């Protein structure tokens, strides 16, 4: 079976180099590889051949229907760890260990690849972090929301995110209260506190989750005023007004504690609810009038939940949302420097789907099928800035999936033989970004260049070599099991490649087809060939390993093009 697959793969490559479509009407091998780099956690030979036969549309439809993998249930534990909970209990209920493992297991083996990929992108836009979310059960319920909503409606997602208790805790909408003002206005706030509402969620939902700081044209470029300066989308006054809307929400009723512990624990499962005093009044909510985005006025005195709905509408209906979110999804899936036309086409789909229950699916479909995403090869001469640097997680999963890895999923925080080679050590500690700005700023540039390369913020002398060391470890050896937290370790399977080792030209060409969609330059081939040829043909595995190592550590492979 494996031999047959490899043969098919090799034949595919032969037809690729001669420029002949394998079958009329089917996508080409290279474009299929590129498509799967953009839509999954890494192409595999069987997946490439399947998608070639089925076509991109059919694959997308299948992905829409595929059951969600997600994360298994985690018991909700008390916020403060009981003294009896140590060892595995502490690891599983008070660290993200199980979630991080499951993330990689899903990415390596799950069938709902596109949903996972989009949910991962959304998790870097609508960010929460362990920095202020200490329990994995709290983190899990939020990540499940992102997975459930990955193909859904953006306005609904924004609403659900806003009321999710984990976001409430992370950005302080939870327990945010109205404040008695000076001069006092007793009709506005009933709880008598004398400080000011917390501005955190109000600012970041505007800046990061929806509209951004500058007014955008429908193609994502900035609008400019008469003097050529960008125009702010909102100001501090607007942030203050939203901070007053976002008052009065508290946790839903407590949940029963875990078996054997008992009692009750905070509810980070259900949406936050309206706080009411003994008389049923919304005594934490600021009832004064407010002016929201675009001058939209709330008259005041309305029920708290109605005000929240109106506020989410005022944000979700802003014309910035489609290009602002659409462009970021393009950057997460396809390329760091999309043309304005590309952004415009995607934003159009985003805006048209405003009331659709599959709005985000339609947006992702438009991103992946766009002419700017597709093609066998992006010519360096005409599109020199095309592509994106693989972020650490995708670097790891793409290598492992390409070579049929078996893994326990312990790949986030990883030290083997004194070498730090996990995604966390490469700068991407899953579920623990440094702040709501996630792992890297969308404004980061390619070193020494004027163009955007957000993921380059995670690519330094230190992390570049850690990537190479990860490749060295899995290609030349294995990540061994290590009690208690690495039950089986991770190994790739190179058996089917040995047969190609006595024909270095074919070996390298086949690897180029799998890892670089056949885009390897002749100079690159020659450089790798020299190293492979230095190894006796009798040592076929060493030849295979050398060729894979040199590709996997190359800059050409770090960049998804």
């Amino acid at each position, binding site marked *: 079976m494996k031999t047959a697959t490899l043969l098919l793969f090799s034949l595919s490559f032969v037809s690729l180099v001669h420029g002949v479509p394998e079958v009329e009407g089917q996508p080409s091998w290279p474009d299929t590889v590129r498509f799967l780099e953009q839509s999954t956690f890494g192409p595999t030979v069987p997946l490439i051949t399947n998608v070639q036969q089925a076509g991109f549309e059919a694959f997308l439809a299948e992905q829409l229907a595929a059951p969600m993998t997600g994360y298994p249930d985690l018991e909700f534990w008390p916020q403060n760890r009981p003294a009896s909970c140590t060892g595995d209990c502490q690891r599983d209920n008070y660290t993200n260990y199980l979630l991080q493992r499951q993330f990689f297991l899903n990415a390596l083996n799950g069938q709902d690849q596109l949903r996972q990929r989009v949910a991962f992108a959304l998790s870097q836009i609508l960010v929460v972090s362990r*920095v202020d979310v200490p329990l994995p059960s709290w983190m899990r319920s939020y990540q499940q929301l992102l997975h459930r909503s990955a193909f859904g409606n953006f306005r609904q997602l924004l609403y659900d995110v806003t009321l999710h208790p984990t976001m409430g805790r992370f950005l*302080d909408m939870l*327990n*945010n209260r109205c*404040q008695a*003002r*000076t*001069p006092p206005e007793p009709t506005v706030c009933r709880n008598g*506190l004398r*400080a*000011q*509402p*917390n*501005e955190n969620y109000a*600012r970041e939902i505007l*800046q990061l989750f929806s509209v951004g*700081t500058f007014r955008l044209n429908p193609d994502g470029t900035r609008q400019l005023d008469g003097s050529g*300066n960008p125009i702010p989308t909102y100001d*501090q006054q607007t*942030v*203050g007004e939203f901070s007053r809307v976002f008052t009065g929400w508290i946790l839903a009723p407590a949940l029963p504690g875990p078996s054997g512990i008992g009692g009750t624990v905070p509810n980070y499962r259900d949406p936050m609810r309206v706080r009411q005093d003994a008389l049923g009044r919304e005594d934490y909510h600021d009832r004064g009038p407010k002016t929201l985005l675009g001058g939209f006025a709330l008259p005041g005195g309305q029920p708290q939940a109605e005000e929240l709905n109106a506020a989410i509408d005022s944000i979700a209906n802003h014309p910035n949302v489609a290009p602002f979110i659409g462009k970021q999804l393009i950057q997460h899936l396809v390329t*760091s420097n999309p043309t304005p036309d590309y952004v415009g086409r995607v934003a159009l789909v985003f805006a048209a789907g405003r009331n659709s229950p599959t709005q985000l699916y339609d947006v992702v479909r438009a991103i992946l099928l766009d002419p700017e995403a597709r093609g066998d090869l992006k010519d*360096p001469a005409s599109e*020199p800035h*095309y592509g994106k*640097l693989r972020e650490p997680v995708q670097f790891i999963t793409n290598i492992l999936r390409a070579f049929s890895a078996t893994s326990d999923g312990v790949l986030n925080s990883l030290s083997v033989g004194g070498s*730090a080679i996990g995604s966390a050590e490469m700068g991407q500690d899953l579920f623990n970004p440094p*702040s709501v*700005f996630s792992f890297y700023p969308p*404004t*980061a*540039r*390619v*070193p*020494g*260049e004027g163009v955007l*390369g957000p993921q*380059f*913020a995670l*690519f*330094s*002398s*230190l992390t*570049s*070599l850690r990537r*190479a*060391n990860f490749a*060295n470890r899995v290609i*030349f050896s294995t990540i061994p099991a290590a009690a208690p937290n690495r039950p089986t370790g991770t190994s790739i399977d190179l058996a089917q490649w040995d047969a190609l080792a006595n024909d270095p030209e074919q070996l390298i060409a086949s690897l180029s087809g799998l890892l670089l969609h056949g885009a390897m*330059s002749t*100079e690159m081939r020659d*450089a790798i060939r*020299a*190293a492979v040829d230095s190894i006796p043909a009798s040592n076929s595995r060493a030849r295979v390993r050398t060729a894979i*190592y040199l590709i996997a*550590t*190359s*800059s*050409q492979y770090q*960049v998804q093009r």
Partner: protein
Amino acid sequence: MTMTRREVLCRSFGAFGAAALAFERFGLLNALAQSADYRALVCIFLFGGNDSGNMVIPYDDYATYASTRQNGGLAIPQTSLLQIDVPSSGSRFGLHPSLTGLHELWGQGKAAVVCNVGSLVEPTNRDSYRNRTVRIPANLFSHSDQQNQWQTSVAEGSSATGWGGRTADRTGDFNATSFPPVTSTAGTPIFTSGSVERPLAIAAAPTRLDGALRLDGFPNPPDNDARYVALQNLLLLDQGTTLVRGASRVTAEAVAIERALRAAGDPVVPPFPLSPRTSLGNQLEQIAKLISLRNELGMRRQIFFCSLGGFDTHSGQVVGGNPAAGGHANLLSQVSNAMRSFYDATVALGVASQVVTFTLSDFARTHVPNGTLGTDHAWGSHQFVVGGSVLGGDFYGVAGSNGTVFPTLAPSGPDDTDDGGNARGRWIPTTAIDQYGATLASWFGVSGVDLPAVFPNVGRFSPTTLGFLG
């Protein structure tokens, strides 16, 4: 003839040249006589926006501070403040009780505070801000924008480089080596990038210095290994693709410097390691180790970057009912201990007067707290400067409307952006980042002629430098 780093970078097209040179120089420079001419700048970025309003507090005028801060439960009790005399102001202030190490350095005249400094396009006061008769920085109160402005010194428009990197660009000729002049233990933020110079990122302690960069899987020396040769050759290819070119730049330098650092060993610089270890302590420890090798590496000018996060204290900044304790107190304690220990390390290395350590942070926080034991985003902030050349024990900056460098702590008052009964107290800076940076860069060796190339807008502010370095 000694080749300067700039010449090295211009001449060597890629990895090969740089790799060979780095190794050769490292060997060569062991034999060079020690140079007394050494200077280093060490930047500590406090990510999230440090509440410096609770770091430096009026003691004589405590009531003004407390009257607004106590509403949200955030006023540090006067009795717990670490008193400092501030000669230029004629009154006493207090440091947060966690800052015992910095308080000692203040007493020794080795620590100073630059007051109410922040991002400015041009000199700005309450009237000109509120009437918009001046240009104001882009996206005030936003983390990402304000971090960027602190690191680039450019408050409107955008900049592709930071002032740390640009300072290195202008002082590269001091170093007779191809070892990078900018080293970071906290990634490669824009502060560290110049037009010519690119930062080296290394692992913090407890990672050994000779393993602070590490490439596994090759013999030592690796020069005759065909795979190693191929690895380097590949870094020269496909240069027509922008992202590939950028990645190869980073990796080529990493591969070259990894070779050089193998000879570094793992020096011990007391009082490091700290017990217990802390994030910032580990970073400053590695920096101290690298400074100890300055002669072997041929370095006469070095810029370092390290950072600590967690300062975005919107809630839980203090413990309810005990404002001197809590998350912010713990962060300040870590900063103070690490800076104090690092100063002691420079004394041990004999370079105390040749190293200046300074803080940056997104912004200060609202003087009026919010209702969740926290504070929100503001603007002008206070920053610490430490070193043997610091004219310590005093405040520095540009005097505002009250005649001192310290802002008037009155919501809706002469230094606030806000107005009315719900004003939060976001102080308009009287001192520009450009002036703060120019003081450091001038001491470091950037000439007056070159200063505008490092701080393009410094000419808008007077004086150009603030006088806190002797």
